[in-house]
C-alpha cells in the first residue's frame, strides 16, 4: 500500500489559511466532495478523537484520524501551512503539515492502521527536507512523497 496512491490532486491543500486546530480541521473537511451533513459528521468524529488525545505528534506534524460510518472507503488528505497552526501538539510546537485520515468503521484488511503507521514514518522523513514547506504544487509534492516512499522500501 502506497501513500501516494491515496493522494489525488484535489486531496492536497498547499496554503491552509487557518491558524487554529479546529479551524484547520474545518477547512480541510470543507474541501471534501461530500454533502454538508456528511462533512459535519466527519468533523464531529475528528473532534471527538482529539478529545481522546491530541493527534499533533510533534515536530510540526499532525495526523488527525477518525472512523465514520458515512464513508465507504479510506480517505487521505494533506494540508500544509508554512506559517503554522496552533494545534495543542505534544511538544507545544505549531503544526506545518496535517495528514488527515478518515476510514469507515470496518475495513477488512485494517488498511487504516497500516496507513497511520506509514504516514508517521514518512512524515518524519519529510520534515527533514527543510524546504518541503516551499512546495506549492501537486506535481512536486507527489514526486517528493514517491521518492520518500521508495527510500523507505529500500530500508526494508
Amino acid at each position: 500500500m502506497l501513500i501516494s496512491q491515496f493522494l489525488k490532486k484535489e486531496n492536497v491543500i498547499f496554503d491552509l489559511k487557518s491558524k487554529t486546530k479546529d479551524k484547520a480541521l474545518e477547512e480541510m473537511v470543507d474541501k471534501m466532495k461530500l454533502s454538508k451533513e456528511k462533512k459535519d459528521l466527519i468533523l464531529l468524529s475528528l473532534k471527538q478523537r482529539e478529545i481522546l488525545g491530541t493527534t499533533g505528534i510533534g515536530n510540526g506534524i499532525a495526523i488527525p484520524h477518525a472512523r465514520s460510518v458515512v464513508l465507504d472507503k479510506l480517505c487521505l488528505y494533506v494540508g500544509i501551512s508554512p506559517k503554522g497552526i496552533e494545534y495543542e501538539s505534544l511538544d507545544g510546537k505549531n503544526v506545518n503539515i496535517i495528514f488527515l485520515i478518515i476510514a469507515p468503521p470496518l475495513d477488512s484488511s485494517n488498511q487504516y492502521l497500516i496507513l497511520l503507521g506509514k504516514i508517521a514514518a514518512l512524515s518524519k522523513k519529510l520534515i527533514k527536507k527543510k524546504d518541503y514547506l516551499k512546495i506549492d504544487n501537486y506535481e512536486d509534492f507527489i514526486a517528493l512523497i514517491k521518492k520518500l516512499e521508495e527510500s523507505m522500501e529500500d530500508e526494508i
Partner: protein
Amino acid sequence: MNIQLQYLIQLSDLDTQLEELKNERIRSKEESIGFRVQSKENEIIKLRENIRKKIEPELLNKYDKIQKRYKMRAVAQVNEGVCYGCFTALPTSYVSEADKNNKIITCPNCGRILFWIE
C-alpha cells in the same frame, strides 16, 4: 437527513473509537506511532452524555440493545444494497428512496440501524 439519525451516527462513531482504543493491540499501535491516548474519562462521559441526551429515549434504547448485542457498530452503512453490519443484501423493495436516511430503518437480518451512504 433525519436529525435523530445524525445523532445516532455521531454516537456510533464515538463508541467505535472508544471501543478501538480499549483494544490493547490498536492502542499500542497508536502509541508506537507517537499518539498519546489520554484518559480524560470525565470529558468523554460528558461528550457521550451530551449526544445521548439529544436522542429520543425509544431510539436510544434500541441503539443500546444493538450495541450490547454486537459490542459495537450499532449503526451500519448500506452500500449497494448490502448492510455492512451483517453483509446481507436487503430485500429489493425494502425501503423507498424517499425514506432512505429520512426514517429510522433497521436491517431485517441483524437489526442494526441503517445509513445509506450513496
